[in-house]
């Protein structure tokens, strides 16, 4: 039986939520940003702003040049996560085979359920109607329907915004011929460039290429590419009830210009280590491999290395000390950096990790537990490292719009 996959993609999501909450913004070009300054970037543009060619990721100064009337709105991650939980609740009512792909996208396998709703198109229309009624008129979604995730996403993109698109089997050959490889989900600029170098520009050409060649060039991913090129996609959904455990826990932060001096960036990094450690403790993990990196300039190179701790840890100070070791290994010594990040991998369950016998370590554990209790009760900003007071508060959702699966608390 051919699968029926729905790809639900919210339209101009953050901007639409802002327009829903604030009617004065409706029908006007708005750009959601981290901070409404010219040095920030546009995280989401309303459909009115998109008409002026304002896109996600565009620097604010450039967006204002393209659209002088652009209204800048500070993002509100709590608001977006809350609405995400609401639309996910609606989708959960249709199928248990629901994959929450991101804060504004989900896949649904409705092979069994669609006939009960009059077919997939009627079902998609019903979902969109419920979004309008229960979330608000401004918060719309486009739904793509196909037999696989990649093609559902691809066909949906052609019906944006606020539409429903279905790909039937007989339409696949035309789609393969007309679709550039770069517009396919999962094929980034680097893979696209490598494909172009060997003369592969469309999905059809990808399907015509030999499987052995693609496997040699791209490994196991080459087999997936070949399958997509032949109009098949058997990629399974990862239902929200069956999310695999995290492989690593990390945070990164793009630095505002006043924080780009290396010593100040280290203070931000210390705070990020604290956030990573707190999240690991909340998830019940400890980790041994600490990866730390930074970027020089807004489009400059990224430098990163990792180190392995003698014992797994979930302590912010220990992770930070490991980061300093890592930074010592990186030979580049920049005066200014634009981004810092830390992640901890090689995770093991905290309940399967022996406790240290050293008194100092045990006191540190007790301190972390006490700090966690205070934050659980009074909020994450209630108790902070003294050093972090030297810089402006770092948003809890680093980068403004980070979302981890544990943020959604769905399981």
């Amino acid at each position: 039986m051919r699968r029926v996959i729905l790809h639900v993609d919210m339209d101009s999501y953050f901007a639409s939520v802002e327009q829903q909450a604030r009617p004065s913004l409706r029908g006007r070009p708005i750009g959601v940003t981290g901070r409404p300054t010219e040095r920030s970037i546009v995280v989401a543009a309303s459909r009115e702003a998109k008409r002026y060619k304002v896109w996600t990721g565009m620097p604010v100064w450039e967006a204002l040049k393209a659209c002088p009337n652009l209204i800048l709105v500070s993002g509100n991650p709590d608001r977006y996560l809350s609405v995400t939980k609401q639309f996910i609740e609606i989708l959960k009512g249709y199928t248990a085979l629901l994959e929450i792909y991101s804060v504004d996208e989900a896949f649904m396998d409705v092979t069994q359920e669609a006939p009960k709703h009059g077919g997939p198109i009627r079902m998609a229309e019903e979902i969109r109607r419920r979004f309008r009624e229960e979330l608000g008129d401004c918060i719309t979604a486009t739904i793509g329907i196909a037999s696989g995730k990649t093609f559902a996403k691809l066909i949906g993109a052609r019906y944006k915004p606020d539409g429903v698109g279905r790909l039937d089997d007989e339409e696949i050959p035309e789609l393969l011929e007309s679709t550039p490889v770069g517009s396919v989900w999962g094929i980034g600029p680097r893979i696209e460039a490598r494909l172009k170098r060997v003369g592969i520009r469309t999905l059809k050409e990808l399907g015509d290429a030999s499987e052995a060649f693609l496997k040699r060039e791209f490994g196991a991913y080459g087999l997936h590419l070949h399958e997509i090129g032949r109009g098949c996609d058997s990629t399974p959904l990862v239902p929200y009830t069956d999310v695999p455990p995290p492989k690593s826990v990390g945070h990164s932060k793009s630095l505002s210009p006043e924080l780009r001096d290396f010593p100040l960036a280290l203070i931000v990094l210390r705070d990020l280590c604290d956030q990573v450690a707190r999240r690991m403790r909340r998830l019940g993990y400890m980790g041994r491999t600490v990866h730390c990196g930074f970027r020089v300039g807004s489009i400059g190179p990224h430098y990163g290395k990792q180190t392995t701790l003698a014992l797994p840890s979930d302590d912010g100070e220990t992770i930070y000390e490991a980061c300093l070791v890592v930074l010592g290994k990186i030979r580049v010594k920049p005066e200014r950096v634009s981004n810092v990040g830390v992640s901890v991998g090689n995770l093991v369950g905290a309940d399967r990790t022996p406790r240290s016998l050293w008194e100092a370590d045990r006191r540190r554990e007790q301190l972390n537990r006490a700090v966690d209790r205070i934050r659980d009760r009074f909020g994450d900003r209630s108790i902070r490292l003294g050093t972090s007071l030297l810089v402006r508060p770092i948003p809890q959702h680093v980068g403004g719009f980070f979302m981890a699966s544990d943020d959604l608390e769905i399981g």
Partner: protein
Amino acid sequence: MNEPIDALVIYRRGAPHPLLRAFRWKDRRYDVTSTHLVHRERDGETVCLVYSVDCGGDTYVLRLDVGRGRWTLEAIG
């Protein structure tokens, strides 16, 4: 603004949050003509519902501290 208010709400079975019908601020009653958005915010143990509503053409932002059952008017316009 953080102004304390009295609120008239309906707890409807199956609704994700209480439905705000009217509120009283500074001895004046404001009837809610439409609800634009309700979202949830959490800070530690404090869970709040933030309502963006319309009363006669103006938008009001109100906050319900769920644990304390306390309503406040946060912003107008």
